[in-house]
């Protein structure tokens, strides 16, 4: 069975901390060669330098490479509002927002992070947040509080899956991506716990192998319907079809 594949977690741009070759053209080639129809993509400039420059770069590149759907970022350490800043990003065509508390070293109880979430909730876009460390899902649940904005916990792994599942049982607006899922049977277990409709495919490409991430999903012991939802259906729904 063939699936429509949309990768919710891709990046391009400079990566100074270790050697990495990450031009957008390489991302586009990887998507094409693995049958991925589109990916939500973001420039690393926004995470590593400042969100203003990064968002401009992301929008420019994504307008040139049609398979890349632009993702905006806001760094709460440099966010002073007003909320119309976020509204403007949505109007420019950004499909999702990503936040990088671990990479940028800010806490999930950062007051400005709450302001950012409020502003994003007004535009109704999903938010993907780094959550690969133990404690992140719980802290994220506390920070989100009663907001109903769709939250995708990024980088959930063997170590904090129980925590993520616990959060998701109480928070119907929480989802997880598959970037850090490596353990045999973990995806099937996750689907059993929270349902396939709460899991979105995210590879982390170009930082991670797209082939490896895709292979893990397609080889997993879950039904085709669940695979179709994870590989594309769920993120399409979150993006509004």
């Amino acid at each position, binding site marked *: 069975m063939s699936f429509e594949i949309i990768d919710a977690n891709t990046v391009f741009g400079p990566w100074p*901390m270790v050697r990495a070759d990450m031009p957008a053209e390489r991302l586009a080639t990887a998507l094409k060669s693995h049958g991925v129809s589109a990916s939500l993509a973001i420039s690393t*400039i926004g995470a*590593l*330098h*400042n969100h*203003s420059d990064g968002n401009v770069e992301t929008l420019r590149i994504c307008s040139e490479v049609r398979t890349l759907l632009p993702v905006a970022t806001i760094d709460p350490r440099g966010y002073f509002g007003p909320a119309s800043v976020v509204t403007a990003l949505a109007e420019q065509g950004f499909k999702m927002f990503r936040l990088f508390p671990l990479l940028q070293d800010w806490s999930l109880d950062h007051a400005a992070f709450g302001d950012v979430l409020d502003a994003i909730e007004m535009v109704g876009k999903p938010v993907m947040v780094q959550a690969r460390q133990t404690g992140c899902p719980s802290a994220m649940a506390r920070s989100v509080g009663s907001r109903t904005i769709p939250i995708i916990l990024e980088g959930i792994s063997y170590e904090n899956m129980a925590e993520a599942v616990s959060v998701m049982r109480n928070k119907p607006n929480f989802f997880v991506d598959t970037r850090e899922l490596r353990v045999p049977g973990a995806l099937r277990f996750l689907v059993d716990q929270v349902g396939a409709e709460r899991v979105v495919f995210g590879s982390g490409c170009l930082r991670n192998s797209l082939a490896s991430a895709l292979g893990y999903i397609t080889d997993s012991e879950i039904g085709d319907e669940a695979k179709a939802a994870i590989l594309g259906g769920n993120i399409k729904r979150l993006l509004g079809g």
Partner: protein
Amino acid sequence: MAIIDLHAEIGTTPLWGVPFTDTNLTRLMQKYGVERAVVSSTIGTSCDFRRGNAHIAQVVKSNPHLRGCLVINIHYPEQSQEDMRAYAGLDSFAGIMLTSGRRGDCVTLAEAEELLNAHRRFVKPVFVRTPDRASLIAANEIAKAFSTMKFVLLGMGGEDWRMATVLADRTLNLVLEVSGSFSPDKIKFAVDRIGAHRLVYGSSLPYCDPSATIGLVEDADISDADKRYIFVNSAKRLLGW
């Protein structure tokens, strides 16, 4: 008193994304009597050294009061060497800055050796960020291994300025750039221990207002001749101006 600033950056700032252009820098140079400044790019030091170097090359070509500081990244030796070949020999570039690509991670001798061997022929100083003790120790090890090169320790070890001074007392090719800590004892301690001819002024713009470091030096209990060394003569000697 004329001043040479050996440590300034231009470009949009990380986090806030506030533009700090060469025009902004020039205005501040005029205000504080800075006759020349050595500049690198904010985006070059935060995430994309090649983009930053290209920007700086354009800026210094048209502004005789500015000299470039070429940023190189130990994780990208080939690309760093390409930039060295393109820019390091130009009169408009005053030296190179060794970076690890991540603020807070110091550059070690093993990682820098290849690039520094390639830099020997340019006979220009090497700038190294030293915000803390670990970076001081690493920079000192590098300086001892390349004893014919001059190494400028940017930030003078931060709160570990005493250690920076002690190391410079023993490693004679170290030069201390006096931004960093604002301890009122720092400048006199260093002048008494290693001499003002081993100290240079750097503003740390756009992250620090020049008034702060200038005030620190002017207020120090040292002679006017020593202050002239710190503000201008040591830099002239170091750069052959």
